[in-house]
């Protein structure tokens, strides 16, 4: 046993760098891609393959191969295989879109909570603001506020992505002001309150002037026109299918931009100032960091991405209503950040993807399979309804994760260095076998 474990470790170390790394990584991506493309029916098997396929992104990130090659592989996965697979199976693209949206939100919240250490429980408010911005202005709802006004043209959606960014920023600063002097628990409670205020406003601002259409929500939100290029690229497909790919690509673009911006900010004077505030705000201010300005900046930057993604979300759903933006959603996004590893960009991406997949795919699938077993009368008592226990399993997973990886799944690099000395041993383990190898440790 011990021998094989050692052997496995030695092999994996070898696989981790140089030519073997290239071969292993390429093979992994190719095999999972091929498996995915040959299983286009929505099923348990496809679910598993899809997860393995996405794990490829993690392997690409962790493997020690040239940056350019990583980029190529990532492009193959995200821009080639996934959209192509999406033309065969809409469900999994929808998953990918949801994941992209929530990963972006997690990255934004990570700026506030992870970098600057400001516990914000009302983050979804900025997402709501972006969504309602486009929801109101792109539909006849605008005429309720300004009689005679007509909705903006659908193509202006692109402009509104930028405006959503700006409006998010403004709201970030506005909601940031009252909480500047607060720390920790107090900050959390006040942001929670502010988040709820935005939601309650969305519910109740149908009177005296109907701004949000109250709990009925806004329907028929406009979508940007489908670019002809995509039609030409995907001949023989219905517009609805192409449109989904289109949304997927846009979500990916916003996400990509977010990653780039967040990454550069983190490794700059601004990012260092945020981290200093998180670590010790008194020392930070004594070292010349203007904490008020830097905190507002963190709120503004974090909120801006949520604002832009809100615009995209409204266009994707074509319908928005207040319950989408409740406290539970804020907590969900926070869970993504914490699960992934506070302050860690790869962590937020991983956490966002994991929680979204768990929520929409993995847990429902487990419940479904258990229900199927129950119908066959195998091993599951009558009173137990798996669908009802889905969320309990999610909670259990959260608890276990926090016990065994308190710093998150992919903690901030600096922190990781001190936690494990064996550099990169597990990297290709994830690539060649997704099971965490408990034996070798």
């Amino acid at each position, binding site marked *: 046993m011990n021998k094989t474990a050692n052997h496995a470790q030695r092999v994996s170390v070898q696989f981790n760098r140089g030519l073997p790394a290239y071969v292993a990584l390429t093979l992994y991506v190719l095999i999972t891609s091929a498996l995915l493309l040959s299983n286009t029916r929505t099923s348990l098997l496809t679910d598993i393959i899809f997860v393995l396929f996405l794990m490829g992104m993690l392997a690409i990130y962790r493997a020690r191969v040239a940056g350019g090659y990583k980029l190529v592989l990532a492009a193959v996965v995200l821009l080639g295989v996934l959209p192509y697979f999406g033309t065969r199976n809409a469900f999994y693209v929808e998953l990918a879109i949801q994941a992209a949206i929530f990963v972006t939100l997690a990255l934004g919240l990570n700026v506030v909570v992870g970098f600057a250490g400001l516990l914000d429980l009302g983050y979804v408010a900025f997402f709501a603001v972006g969504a309602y911005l486009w929801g109101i202005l792109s539909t006849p709802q605008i005429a309720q506020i300004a009689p005679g006004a007509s909705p903006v043209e659908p193509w202006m959606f692109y402009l509104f992505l930028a405006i959503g960014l700006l409006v998010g920023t403004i709201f970030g600063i506005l909601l940031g002001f009252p909480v500047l002097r607060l720390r920790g628990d107090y900050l959390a409670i006040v942001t929670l309150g502010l988040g709820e205020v935005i939601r309650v406003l969305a519910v109740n601002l149908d009177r005296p002037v109907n701004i949000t259409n109250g709990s009925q929500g806004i329907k028929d939100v406009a979508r940007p026109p489908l670019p002809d290029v995509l039609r030409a690229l995907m001949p023989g497909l219905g517009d609805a299918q192409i449109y989904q790919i289109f949304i997927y690509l846009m979500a990916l673009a916003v996400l990509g931009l977010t990653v780039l911006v967040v990454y550069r900010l983190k490794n*700059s004077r601004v*990012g260092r100032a945020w981290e200093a505030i998180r670590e010790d705000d008194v*020392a930070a*201010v004594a*070292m010349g960091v203007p904490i008020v300005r830097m905190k507002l900046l963190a709120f503004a930057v974090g909120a801006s991405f949520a604002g832009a993604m809100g615009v995209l979300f409204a266009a994707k759903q074509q319908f928005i209503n207040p319950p989408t933006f409740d406290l539970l959603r804020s907590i969900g996004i926070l869970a993504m950040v914490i699960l992934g590893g506070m302050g860690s960009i790869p962590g937020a991406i991983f956490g966002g993807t994991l929680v979204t997949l768990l929520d929409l795919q993995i847990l429902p699938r487990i419940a479904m399979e258990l229900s199927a077993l129950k119908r066959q009368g195998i091993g599951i008592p009558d009173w137990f309804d798996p669908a009802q226990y889905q969320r309990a399993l999610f909670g259990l997973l959260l608890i276990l994760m926090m016990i065994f990886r308190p710093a998150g799944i992919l903690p*901030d690099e600096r922190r990781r260095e001190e936690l494990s000395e064996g550099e990169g041993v597990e990297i290709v383990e994830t690539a060649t076998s997704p099971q965490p190898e408990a034996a070798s440790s």
Partner: protein
Amino acid sequence: MALLEAENITKVFGGLMAVNSVSLTVEKGSIVSVIGPNGAGKTTFFNVLTGIYKPDGGTIRFDGETITGLRPDQITQRGIARTFQNIRLFGNMTALENVMVGMHSRLRAGVWGAIFQTPQVRQEETRARQRARELLAFVGLERRMDELAKNLPYGDQRRLEIARALATQPKLILLDEPTAGMNPQETAEATELIRRLRDELGITVVLIEHDMRVVMTISERITVLDYGSKIAEGKPEEIRTNPRVIEAYLGRGAALEAQMR
């Protein structure tokens, strides 16, 4: 020429006069100690000087400018740096990053510069990194640059705090008990480092210190606080024999005994 002139500084917490009309003048290029028994108000006085607390009375002039009531970061920008009694490093950041945070007010890169990675920003970043390495070398931490601050041994943490304070490019540095908890060997090294701050970098030093050997060997002037008030001020040899100081430290009996001798 006086670099720092604090006049009649008063700070009240509830009913407690933490600092009671204390004045302190520090000449440029000198090393000055502030001593006094525990709870005498030394650290509070530092906190007022650096803007962490707003004074309830008095004025502070620094380098010809009134800085009373400015925010701590503004005061740091004007050239006063400090360390903390109970080390306050950014634990989860590396030694190098700690020093680079200290440079904040001397660097220009903003959000847009960082996002677009303009040539100026990249150059500035490279220079800052280089400068941070030099500062770490100055305090003897060049080999510890990539270690997390919280993982450094105690003595190194104290040094890192000094390097971080130096990164703000101060004219005056306030050291709050720089040798607290150190063994004699470390204390001697720290004393030497403090001297080098002044001799090699030309920085004026004010320190709070309990170790009398350090205070007496290094300071040119000493100010003694007790119960928030200044009870004595002068050269080390004057302070050593001042009955009020002995009384404050050792009690009335000891003071009388000293007088008898």
